[in-house]
């Protein structure tokens, strides 16, 4: 994706349509890959499908087929359990052979439930242990400063992940050092494994928390592609003086009615008949 010459070019309806189509692709591929593994994180991935698609098809400065390009923007997936939605995108960018997707989670395949940077080209950092990757992203962003490169780092965090104390260690340091090339995107789908995030341990007032740590905050509908794209491009091209938390309000299980209504679909598997119905629902919606 070339650096944008102006917002009008990159927020054109063509780009928006492409991102929407790729978000649907992420959901359909997620269903397909989980059918291979017979277990997977459907609803956590569906809530961030537009976020992933917007980043990878509208925001990140990447070179097709060159996953190690030193000046690329970095993406770290704090909520590593949504990696099943990232892999099809990385293959789509020519970072690895899409045929590998067909062996998702099978013995010796590089693609597991959580991403491994030593095995998956284009995966900028491994994850799976919640709370680590904002620190890692901060290290990358500081590394850009120290090595004289101007890339940005985007960290996708689950809202349940914000229960982890290390998140706030990283937030404090990033705020203190004014690390403007770091963007945290919170997938605020409202649920963690045991139920509602704010019933378990509330993370509100969320925007105020980030601000108190020295961050700018933007709240956005995480399924509204033009809004996401506009927000993230402004941050990419605006050289902010502070790190920014984008609180993306999303729906866990977005796109599949019965998953939207039942937090249990954080992890699961669909038998053939139910899978076919889900695919029909996803295809009809767009």
């Amino acid at each position, binding site marked *: 994706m070339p650096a944008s010459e102006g917002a009008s070019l990159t927020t054109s309806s063509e780009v928006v349509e492409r991102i929407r189509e790729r978000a649907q692709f992420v959901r359909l591929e997620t269903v397909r890959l989980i059918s291979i593994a017979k277990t997977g994180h459907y609803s956590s991935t569906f809530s961030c499908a537009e976020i992933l698609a917007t980043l990878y098809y509208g925001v990140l400065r990447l070179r097709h087929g060159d996953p190690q390009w030193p000046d690329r923007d970095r993406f770290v997936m704090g909520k590593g359990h949504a990696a099943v939605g990232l892999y099809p995108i990385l293959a789509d960018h020519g970072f690895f052979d899409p045929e590998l997707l067909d062996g998702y989670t099978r013995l010796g395949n590089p693609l597991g439930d959580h991403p491994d940077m030593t095995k998956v080209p284009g995966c900028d950092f491994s994850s799976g242990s919640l709370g680590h990757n904002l620190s890692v992203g901060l290290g990358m962003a500081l*590394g850009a400063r*120290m090595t004289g490169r101007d890339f940005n780092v985007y960290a996708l965090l689950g809202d349940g992940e914000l229960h982890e104390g290390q998140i706030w260690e990283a937030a404090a340091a990033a705020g203190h050092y004014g690390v403007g090339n770091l963007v945290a995107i919170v997938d605020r789908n409202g649920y963690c494994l045991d139920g509602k995030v704010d019933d378990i341990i509330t993370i509100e007032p969320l925007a105020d928390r980030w601000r108190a740590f020295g961050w700018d905050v933007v709240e956005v509908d995480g399924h509204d592609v033009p809004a996401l794209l506009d927000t993230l491009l402004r941050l990419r091209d605006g050289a902010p003086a502070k790190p920014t938390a984008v609180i993306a309000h999303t729906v866990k299980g977005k796109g599949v009615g019965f998953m939207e209504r039942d937090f249990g679909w954080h992890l699961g598997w669909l038998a053939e008949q139910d899978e076919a119905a889900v695919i029909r629902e996803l295809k009809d919606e767009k």
Partner: protein
Amino acid sequence: MNLNTDSLVPRGADGQPLAEGSWHIPSMLLKSPGLLALGEQLGALVDDGEPVVVLTPDLSFSNGLWAFHERHPERFLQLGVSEQNSVSVAAGLATTGLRPYVTGFASFLALLCCEQIRTDIAYTRQPVRLIGHHSGITFGFYGTSHHATEDIAIMRTIANMTVVAPADHVAMGVLLKAYADHPLPVYFRMGRGREPIVYEPDDERIRPGQAIVHATGDDLTIIATGTTVHPSLLAAEELRAEGHSVGVIDLHTIKPLDEAAVVAAAQGSRGLMTVEEHNVYGGLGGAVAETLTDRGIGVPLLRHGIRDEYAPIGPPTHLYRHYRLDGPGIAEEARAFLKSGRMTSDVR
């Protein structure tokens, strides 16, 4: 490096230095040459062109990085009291081509950050160096929260990790430099920087992965690492004066272990004794026992160290005496071992 250490001296209201003997955190460095040397050694790596970044969780005086900061502030990152964040930030820095050195008390670095080290550094193969100082019971009466008698065991079970415990700051400097380009993570285990000097500068025997055989002995070989090397050498002298033939090996690189040196000692001595400022489970003694067992070598082995307990309150030197980890104590343990049924029995 010729650093002006004037700013470290404690001063009274009149701006004059306080009486000889008064000390505070910055001036403590002047009493810890090993830690002051660490800052200078890391600074020398930058001077050599290494892409070093040093991270500290609010311990730049406690670990001598003050000297590094004086020299290379642009390569110094202060992260406050957040050890876990520091380790993961180091992982991110490493992905950009930098070579991060995370320093901290061994208790917090190796124990508190065990999972960040495993998941963010070792699993991902990042060339981060972890320097755990004040290891073992060197903290004395600061108590168990500040002790690390588990760190060798933890670090050596982490795949991709190298574990090194230099005996003094000369060996630390040599090994720090020797591992500068190592493509995978390294854990350096240090004392509190007041360890007696064992090695002459530029001693050519100090090489990564290679045990240093100070002496061989028919009766017993003492295998030591880090802070226990110096007292083991003292113990061996004492035992030799009594007519025992005693060897000493400095096994500074605990992983990968110099197995040939251990096997040679087992073949050349009637018994082996490991000495470590660590729990006897899983550390140096454990590593040596595994090596012997794997090869079917049935030599009597005494694993000497902290025997699966937490240390009582006491100054470091008193604790070493309590645990028989000083020269006379190690000699006493060795004497008892040499006389014991384990050494004289035919059941080998």
